[in-house]
């Protein structure tokens, strides 16, 4: 743990010190510089404050890290037992991380009818797959699922726990992280492993164009969530691991929440499944003009997706939204039309194989990630493009 000590004797220009803090957390009270509750510990003042602010590392020892071994992946299955593919992506990353510190890779499956998913996880390289299989676990309910994950952690003491950033994962991971009084880093986009088993977690932060490198140096396990399609699915392997079944006492399988009704939504192909996406951005002037993008998408065998602004304008359904607060996509081709390229959007599509950007503003940040850039007006370029594609396709 660390805190910031203020050397009042070194203060010469309080105003410039107050201006250092991007969060307005430095203030002057009765001639003394103080840090208020707005502090986000970005350490800017320590680096730029000319010695006024000093980082004091508390020597309090943390947990004995050698007692926490293994990288665990919480694998989600649906009520029919089919595995969410983010689990395989996390398993691939877990193997890579575990190899650096010679730890085992474990997977956890909670549900009913877990056998096929467990075997699939073995085929993708899990050393152990732990299952909690019970009819009471068929549907996600927070209390029994949290109890199962808690039980698994108490039995296996994993050093890191990786959870898919699905809706259920984002409900389960914080609940159990709080139960173990440990750290949780949400929506990581890069994960690495330090020799001392500290998980290096990198995520976009402060909602802006900033990446934060986060560690959990004195607590175990280290929880991280990662969205679907951030990491690639690893190649299949010769299964070498084993499945270990656990049970929970009946009282730990109950929930106070009573499910009254469950309605399936129509099974429309999600934008995550599409190989080609045409993205509607703010450069599209009115909702009727989306038909132009639909025509291009159809020609290319893809679908129209959108930025947050377009969903907020009510032009397209939220299911089409790409980005941190929408879906993460990794198509073979993505054509962004009038998209500026805010970091939250880019985080949701930067893994795409071929990124084409069309925007009138040559300084738009989308051009920093685009493989092919077209500085131009979508209203001029796209009709031409549609015509040329039609001609080439015959």
């Amino acid at each position, binding site marked *: 743990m660390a805190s910031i000590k203020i050397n009042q004797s070194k203060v010469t220009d309080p105003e410039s010190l107050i201006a250092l803090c991007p969060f307005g957390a430095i203030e002057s009270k009765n001639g003394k510089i103080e840090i208020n509750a707005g502090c986000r510990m970005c350490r800017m003042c320590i680096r730029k404050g000319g010695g006024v602010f000093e980082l004091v590392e508390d020597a309090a020892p943390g947990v004995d890290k050698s007692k926490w071994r293994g990288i665990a992946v919480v694998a989600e299955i649906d009520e029919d037992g089919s595995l969410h593919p983010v689990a395989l992506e996390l398993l691939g990353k877990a193997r890579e991380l575990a190899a650096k510190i010679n730890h085992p890779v474990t997977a956890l499956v909670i549900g009913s009818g877990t056998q096929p998913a467990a075997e699939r996880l073995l085929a993708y390289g899990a050393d152990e797959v732990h299952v909690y299989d019970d009819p009471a676990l068929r549907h996600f309910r927070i209390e029994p699922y949290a109890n199962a994950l808690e039980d698994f952690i108490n039995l296996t003491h994993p050093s890191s726990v990786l959870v898919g950033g699905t809706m259920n994962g984002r409900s389960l991971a914080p609940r159990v992280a709080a139960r173990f009084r440990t750290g949780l880093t949400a929506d990581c986009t890069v994960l690495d492993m330090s020799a001392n088993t500290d998980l290096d977690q990198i995520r976009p932060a402060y909602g802006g164009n900033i990446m*934060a490198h986060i560690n959990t140096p004195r607590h175990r396990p280290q929880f991280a969530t990662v969205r679907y399609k951030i990491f690639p699915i690893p190649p299949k392997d010769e299964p070498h691991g084993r499945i270990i079944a656990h049970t929970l006492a009946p009282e730990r399988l109950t929930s*106070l929440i009573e499910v009254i009704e469950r309605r399936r939504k129509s099974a429309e192909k999600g934008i995550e499944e599409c190989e080609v996406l045409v993205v509607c951005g703010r450069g599209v002037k009115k909702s009727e003009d989306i038909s132009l993008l639909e025509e291009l998408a159809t020609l290319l065998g893809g679908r129209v997706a959108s930025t947050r602004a377009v969903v907020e304008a009510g032009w397209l359904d939220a299911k089409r939204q790409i980005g941190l607060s929408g879906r993460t996509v990794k198509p073979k081709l993505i054509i962004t039309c009038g998209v500026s390229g805010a970091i939250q959007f880019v985080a949701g599509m930067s893994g795409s194989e071929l990124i084409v950007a069309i925007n009138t503003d040559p300084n738009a940040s989308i*051009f920093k990630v685009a493989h092919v850039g077209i500085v131009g007006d979508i209203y001029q370029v796209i009709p031409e493009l549609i015509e040329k594609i039609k001609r080439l396709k015959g």
Partner: protein
Amino acid sequence: MNILICIKQVPGTSQVEIDEKTGTLKRDGVAAKMNPFDLYALETALRLKERTSAALTVLTMGPPQCEKVVREAFMMGVDSGVILSDRAFGGADVLMTSYTLSEGARRAGPFDLIICGKQTTDGDTAQVGAELAEWLGIPHVVNVKAIGEIDERAITVTVDLPDSEVTERIPFPCLMTVEKGIFEPRLPSYRRKLATADREITWLALADLNDSDPKHYGLNGSPTQVKRIFPPESHIERITLEGSPAEQAAALAKLLEERKFLQ
């Protein structure tokens, strides 16, 4: 019935950037405002108040300036406000933020229902709600998109999942986080602004909480540590298609054909 709504003051813009020359954060135009997602939590509570005559309290943590968002909640129709503010709370991560809120909720409560927004626009983690529920030992439900029946013992809500919608009945006390768009948030009223200008707010500092050990709060108690912040890498390899729109379109069509997208 007592309902608590957790709110937060956030920077006015989500576009905080790093100055690559100096390595400092640019802070142009970062006037603070209420976290936009919290407006939906407030509106949900206000609708429930109309149906049940529940008493509404807002809870926030932050520097003294955050009084502004509590006043804004009063102007929307909230009855009382509690602010957790202490130097010891600074630098809190998700675990410590949720713990401090739980101590504040215990002090100001008890509450039958706690409502949180989906996420904040600055932290963007969407995890404080679930952790707060764990600290308080009450069930939670996230992604609530509609409210059904409510009585003295429980509330019925509809939760939005990717491929289904689930209607659930949750007994009190419980916590829920609501989706953006669950209701259209009302605007603050000038009449209420005048009526609530002198309304007292409860300020809670470390010493006012049941657990007043500074090691259990803020930076001291936070398991996660920000090691460093840096600007994201930008892509290096890229080509630009020049010329008239027709020439640009022709070049792109050719490229797409070469890459086998036109089959």
